[in-house]
């Protein structure tokens, strides 16, 4: 190559670098850090997502948002009692807050209020300032990681389902296990021991590799030869109670919700980790009832679950007769882990009292509250627009509907390890796509206005065709490696733990491989 040509190339590259530097400088220098002259607008600015007027954790990622007010330029000032204010300028209204400054500001203002001032430059060149948006920074952090399932709304067929983990302090998301790792299989019901990421179970179903459950304990991953449904680990980690369901999906001809699910038969089974065997105590495997959604009290002394009567004789017809009349009660049974003995079944709250079907109980780690949802009928709240969240004070025995509900389904909630935060699924953005929301629950049991899990792109949810479902808050990232999980999902089962045949064993015909539910 001649020197002249090299020199030309150098000139071109240097010129481009200068142009980029000049443009960057120009953009930065154009963006004002403060606006001195403006007119005040006596209302809140229109922003999306709505992150404001509530309590946020100090360890949450920047709440990037989009200003929807028309304008030529935008300036957002975020400030609080202490710490350096943050100024974000934008040409489009997309507000992306710098991570380090955000973290520092929130850390310096625990228990205090932060304010967000939104300035919009009008066509005429003048600026207007809207009323300040405010948030309270909670003293208590939310757990570091959210584990959730990501997939499109599915009916009979699917292709891509994955369980992911998201660090809440930033936006880093990584796959825990994806269906493509085992023949585009289905995976669900991920469950942990408390909020610890050490132990994890995931139910798998694959036409190629069969139905099974992955059991990860630390870095060791094993495969159990049967698929577990909803799973609740005893706080000791010595046993896990899971549901066995003969589930059928069907579809509604009218109404907003197309899909519905019924358990033609169900029971709970218990896997004893050390003995590697499954037992079915009669307390929660009554042949005339449908038991599901197990959950433990944090002291491990009670197993809560939902139980409803089987209202149909014919266990082949889908949906069965009176499916819309089925309502579940909230029950519990005591357990002594030292002697491995179960007590009698107690009804904590009956459907007769509430007039609704009680589902998905989850006790707060401090043992004070029991969060559950109630809907008009059946066992699957995510497909029921009527499903709302309720909170029971276990010390007083009273319950109330939370103010954070919407006209659409709220369900699949999870407590943070400090009992101050809940993550839950909601379809409030249109009724079809499930999104995960976080809400602060104070000592009195009041749940504050929920915020959607923030994303780096403020418009992320506006064009997201996937649902974020079954959120679980855990203290750290899943310990088991993703390669090990994927490899074990394809391998032969190492734990053979068949449920004993008993009167409680579901009697409906096995489900077809394509039957699935969200």
């Amino acid at each position, binding site marked *: 190559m001649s020197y002249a040509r090299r020199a030309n190339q150098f000139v071109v590259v240097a010129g481009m670098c200068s142009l980029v530097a000049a443009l960057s400088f120009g953009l930065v220098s154009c963006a004002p850090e403060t606006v001195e002259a403006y007119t005040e607008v006596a209302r809140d600015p229109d922003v999306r997502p709505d992150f404001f007027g509530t309590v946020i954790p100090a360890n949450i990622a920047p709440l990037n948002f989009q200003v929807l007010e028309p304008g030529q330029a935008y300036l957002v000032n975020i400030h609080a009692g202490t710490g350096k204010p943050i100024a974000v300028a934008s040409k489009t209204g997309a507000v992306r807050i710098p991570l380090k400054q955000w973290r520092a500001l929130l850390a310096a203002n625990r228990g205090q209020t932060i304010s967000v001032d939104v300035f919009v430059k009008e066509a005429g060149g003048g600026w207007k300032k809207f009323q300040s948006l405010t948030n309270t920074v909670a003293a208590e952090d939310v757990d570091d990681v959210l584990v959730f399932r990501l997939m499109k709304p599915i*009916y009979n067929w699917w*292709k891509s389902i994955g369980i992911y983990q998201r660090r809440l302090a930033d936006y880093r998301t990584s796959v825990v296990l994806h269906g493509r*790792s085992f023949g585009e299989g289905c995976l669900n019901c991920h469950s942990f021991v408390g909020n610890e990421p050490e132990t994890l179970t995931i139910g798998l179903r694959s036409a190629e590799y069969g139905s099974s459950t992955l059991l990860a304990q630390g870095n060791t991953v094993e495969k159990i030869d049967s698929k577990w449904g909803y799973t609740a680990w005893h706080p000791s980690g010595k046993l896990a109670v899971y549901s066995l369901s003969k589930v059928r999906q069907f579809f509604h001809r*009218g*109404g*907003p919700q*197309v899909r519905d699910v019924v358990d033609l038969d169900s029971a709970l089974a218990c896997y004893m980790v050390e003995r590697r065997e499954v037992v079915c105590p009669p307390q929660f495997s009554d042949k005339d009832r449908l038991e599901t959604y197990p959950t433990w009290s944090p002291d491990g002394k009670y197993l809560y679950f939902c139980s409803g009567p089987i209202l149909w004789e014919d266990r082949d017809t889908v949906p069965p007769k009176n499916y819309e009349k089925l309502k579940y009660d909230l029950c519990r049974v005591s357990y002594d882990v030292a002697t491995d003995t179960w007590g009698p079944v107690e009804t904590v709250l009956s459907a007769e009292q509430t007039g609704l079907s009680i589902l998905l109980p989850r006790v707060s780690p401090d043992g004070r509250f029991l969060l559950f949802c109630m809907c008009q009928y059946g066992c699957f709240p995510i497909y029921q627009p009527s499903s709302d969240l309720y909170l029971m004070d276990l010390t007083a025995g009273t319950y109330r509907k939370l103010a954070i509900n919407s006209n659409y389904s709220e369900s699949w909630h999870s407590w943070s390890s400090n009992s101050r935060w809940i993550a839950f699924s909601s379809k409030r953005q*249109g009724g079809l*796509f499930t999104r995960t929301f976080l809400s602060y629950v104070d000592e009195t049991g009041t749940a504050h206005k929920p915020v959607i899990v923030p994303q780096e792109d403020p418009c992320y949810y506006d*064009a997201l065709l996937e649902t974020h479902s079954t959120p679980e808050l855990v203290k750290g990232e899943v310990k088991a490696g993703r390669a090990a999980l994927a490899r074990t999902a394809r391998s032969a089962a190492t734990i053979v733990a068949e449920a004993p045949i008993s009167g409680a064993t579901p009697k409906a015909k096995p489900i077809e491989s394509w039957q699935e539910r969200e």
Partner: protein
Amino acid sequence: MKSRQAIDVGGHSRYWAGQLVLLVPAFLYLWLGVDSRLLYRGFGTVLADVPVFSSGWLFLRQSLGMPGGLVVYLSGYLSQWYHHAWAGALIVTLAALLVAVLVERHFTYASLPRTPALVCLPAICVLLLVAQYRHPLGACLTVSLGLLFSLAFERLPWHRASLRLPLYCLLVVVGYALVGAGGVFVFAIMTAIYSLFVRRRWWPSVFVIVASVVLIRGLSEYVYLLPFRTALRVATPFSADLTAGMKMSSRMLLATLYAFVPVAVAVMLVGKMAWTRKETRRAGKTRDKKGEPRSRALVFGRRGVALLLPVLVLAVGLALAYDGPRKDAVQINACARQQQWSRLLELARDLPKGKANIACNHDINRALYHTGRLPYEMFSFPQNPHALLLTRERRPSSLTQLQLCELFTELGNLNTAEKMAGELLATDGNLALVLEKLAWIQIIKGQAETARVYLNVLLKDPIYGNTAREMLNGLDRGFAPQRAAWIERIRSCVPTDPYGVTYGGSVEQILTGLLEQNPRNRMAFEYLMASYLLTRQLDKVIANLDRLADFDYEGMPTYFEEALLIWRTMRHEPIDPAALGISLATYKRYQSFLQISRSLQSGNQQATLNRLVREFGSSYFFYYGFGRVGVAARGAAGPRPLARAE
């Protein structure tokens, strides 16, 4: 030296002339004959391939996160241009040219004769696949990039194995990420061949093959988390994604595209080595004879033949590979997806009458309904009772799901339509056509916020972006009166019972259910009657004639009249056309039909049958009597074979 250069220049000119002679007619044929718009409309429907593309970093990042991501992204982007016939033709032609150029480069590198017919063979495979309404763009790019990697590697200035082999491994890792296993195997095999036959070293040949497999294994296990078998098939002719729905001839063409260069180069290099050895031996024994000078005419003649041979091969290939029924299906599908009902019926009238395709027939019936001709002309086309609501397949194909989604939307069976479209989206990716359907369904259901999510995704589609903008405008400011009326009409037909379960599988249950919801659902009524006519349930046809009062027909539609006449005759009931509301013309035709039919018992039966086909083939009298349609082609003089569905 000067004369050598002149010869090279001459060779290049001939080479490019050869390419032009092949590719210019190929471009014109693809543009004017094949029409890539039909392919575009067929993506995800008659073509199993769904080359999804979305503008923005997110889609790019997602694509590059999978093996072969670059090819998926590029082919997805370029396929959007199929929406314009000229652009589609140009893209395919350039893709074919790219393969041809790379083949030529490999032949040159291996010092092999660059016979135009051989050099152009993979390009011809690409053109033939497109002419068969397949979509080999991804495969073409994969092979091209594999060949390009191989050329780049061979031209490296370093010759030490200690440098070349680690670099090879790096290229395999990058290659697998960008072009998938298909491209890597082309690269690996070419490298092995050159090492063995050009450098005469066997162990690097073995190394590159083994290293490629081992690296893919490692990448699948730790990076892409894929089963090894799946990882090995990515972007190869063994991948189900690439060959779904292909006939054997198309699969052979695809296999040739991948295997041609490695096989041809290996075979020719072996042949060359054997020939050189033989010649050396012979040279030792006999004196070399000088060849006789060739005449100029002979040289030009040979060059001319060499130039025209690829065109000839392509022409013969096109003649042999022509798939008329597939073209009909693709054309009908494109018209139906764009709701060009009159054009669809024009095409349908020219379809071969001896055969019918249920998917086409379904679209024809829909076109007949939309043009108001269903109860008047449905037996002018081949019929099959399964075609109405596509009831044959247990697990619907993508095409069936889309067709049913459209039909159920129009019928008001909206939740089932949503289910069909939702399943397509979950299994086939974000196909723009499906996103649009889902957005309309949500708009009709009054779920504007959900509709916006679909439309925001659709905004990023290069072709459907404007449609999305218009629909978002409609949501903000209201839809045009015609569209608003359409939305309201469908809303009036949508079942409202939230506890009601989707209608059972039978056509009758679905359509009667919809009529219960809205007795003025004209489409449901006409499809119900069509279903009864097709299954020859005259009692039910007659029982539903009272519903005519709910609609504004000008008199009783022809096929209902014909069914009523047959029914009364069978029950030996008197026929008073005026009292029954039957036109005199229909009544006279019926008498004539009966008269001719009676003569079937005696005389020349074939001649009588031919006459019935000619005069009554498109009547319900004929369908009821013979269980099939007896239509003659438009303007045909003689009788045509009876039409029976496949």
